């Protein structure tokens, strides 16, 4: 049980009479990066949001650290989970420093610790603290903003990281850069990560395992190798349309 960070048990999500997700049974192992892959409307974002209770399941149970999310204090739950969305949602009226320091401040950490943490997080995402901490989001490029978003999500030292199409809005070069960056970070911090994407290439690059979703149902969970060799028609279709090029194929196999 300790190895399971997140678990979905018979989870269904219904909205306006329609079933958008489920029934879903899924486990996320501690320290792994699980990618939820699927097209728009496949339910992957829904599944993600059930983890930090931005949405509530209609049936079934979502467990985080062995406890049903329903039993967690929802604010506490969210503060212990890092959350990065595609638009970053950086507070435009806060400096980079204030943005990144947000969760540690909410958790009541002492100020000196917060300052160190902010600097540390910025370095982690390859942004020189001296240069960037006083800037405002509108003074940053798209890529830089995404990095701050990741730094912010990690600042509270969460057990779990949720990422929703985080690299989707960036130009290909920035996207590639950030994906590399993310893998570096993972080597250092080893967070349990659930990452939502519709991009096959990204999934294969970043994932330990890939959970393929379609029409709200889980089609299967695959390791990289399994995904590349699967004879399943849907998987094959994904392989076909993805631009599958992997420079330096030596990461977590």
């Amino acid at each position: 049980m300790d190895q399971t960070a997140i678990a979905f048990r018979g989870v269904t999500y219904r909205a306006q009479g329609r079933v958008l997700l489920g029934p879903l049974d899924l486990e996320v192992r501690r320290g792994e990066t699980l990618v939820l892959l699927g097209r728009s409307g496949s339910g992957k974002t829904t599944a993600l949001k059930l983890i930090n209770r931005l949405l509530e399941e209609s049936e079934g149970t979502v467990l985080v650290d062995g406890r049903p999310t329903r039993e967690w204090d929802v604010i506490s739950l969210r503060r212990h989970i890092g959350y990065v969305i595609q638009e970053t949602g950086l507070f435009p009226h806060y400096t980079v420093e204030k943005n990144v320091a947000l969760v540690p401040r909410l958790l009541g950490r002492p100020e000196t610790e917060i300052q160190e943490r902010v600097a540390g997080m910025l370095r982690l995402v390859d942004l020189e603290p001296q240069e960037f901490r006083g800037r405002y989001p509108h003074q940053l490029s798209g890529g830089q903003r995404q990095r701050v978003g990741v730094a912010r999500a990690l600042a509270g030292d969460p057990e779990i990281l949720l990422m929703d199409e985080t690299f989707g809005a960036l130009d290909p070069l920035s996207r590639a850069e950030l994906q590399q960056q993310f893998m570096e970070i993972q080597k250092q911090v080893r967070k349990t990560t659930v990452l939502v994407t519709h991009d096959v290439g990204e999934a294969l690059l970043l994932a330990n395992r890939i959970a393929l979703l379609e029409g709200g149902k889980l089609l299967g969970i695959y390791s990289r190798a399994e995904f590349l060799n699967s004879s399943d028609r849907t998987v094959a279709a994904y392989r076909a349309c993805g631009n599958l090029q992997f420079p330096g194929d030596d990461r977590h196999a």
Partner: protein
Amino acid sequence: MLEFIRLHRVEIATLTLEHIWLVAISMAIAVLIGVPAGILLTRKPKLREPVIGGANVIETIPSLALFGFLLPAPWLGARADRIAITALALYALLPIIRNTYVGITGVDPGVREAARGMGLTSRQMLWQVELPLSMSVILAGIRTATVLCIGIATIAAAIGAGGLGEFIFRGLAMVNDSLILAGAIPAAILALAVDLGLGWLEARLRPPSA
């Protein structure tokens, strides 16, 4: 005209101060009630229709009529300044409530979602995200309301509340242009000054967009 101003400068100053006082008190009341009301509407959307609808109705009542309605009210109606301040505050409510509501609901949904996801409580959301980011819009509402009040306050002199309208009404009764202008010009200047001043503040408070 200049000679007139020089001769009557004390009176002009007195009436201008009275005018400002009427508007200031009314606006203070309207903001203290209106902004929380606007915030409440974002939390309880069901109230939106009745509250904004109600404020709308008040807005359509001609000012002089509203003054008249309030005359027989107990305590309120006993003093002209109370009537004037009440009416002015009522008129100021709609722009303020509406802009507060629009400002807050207009906050970038991405920011809102990120904030929720990070574990901000509803209260923290309000003070750290929603209010700072909607301050510019709220201020726009206050600006509209204040300029409106400065105008309506000139009519308050008709019921004895003092202010620059006294010059205007007197000038009308005596068919004296100088008097009318002595009331109208300061009122207009006041309105312009407030409009520009708050406009500047509004621009400063606008959150920088990416």
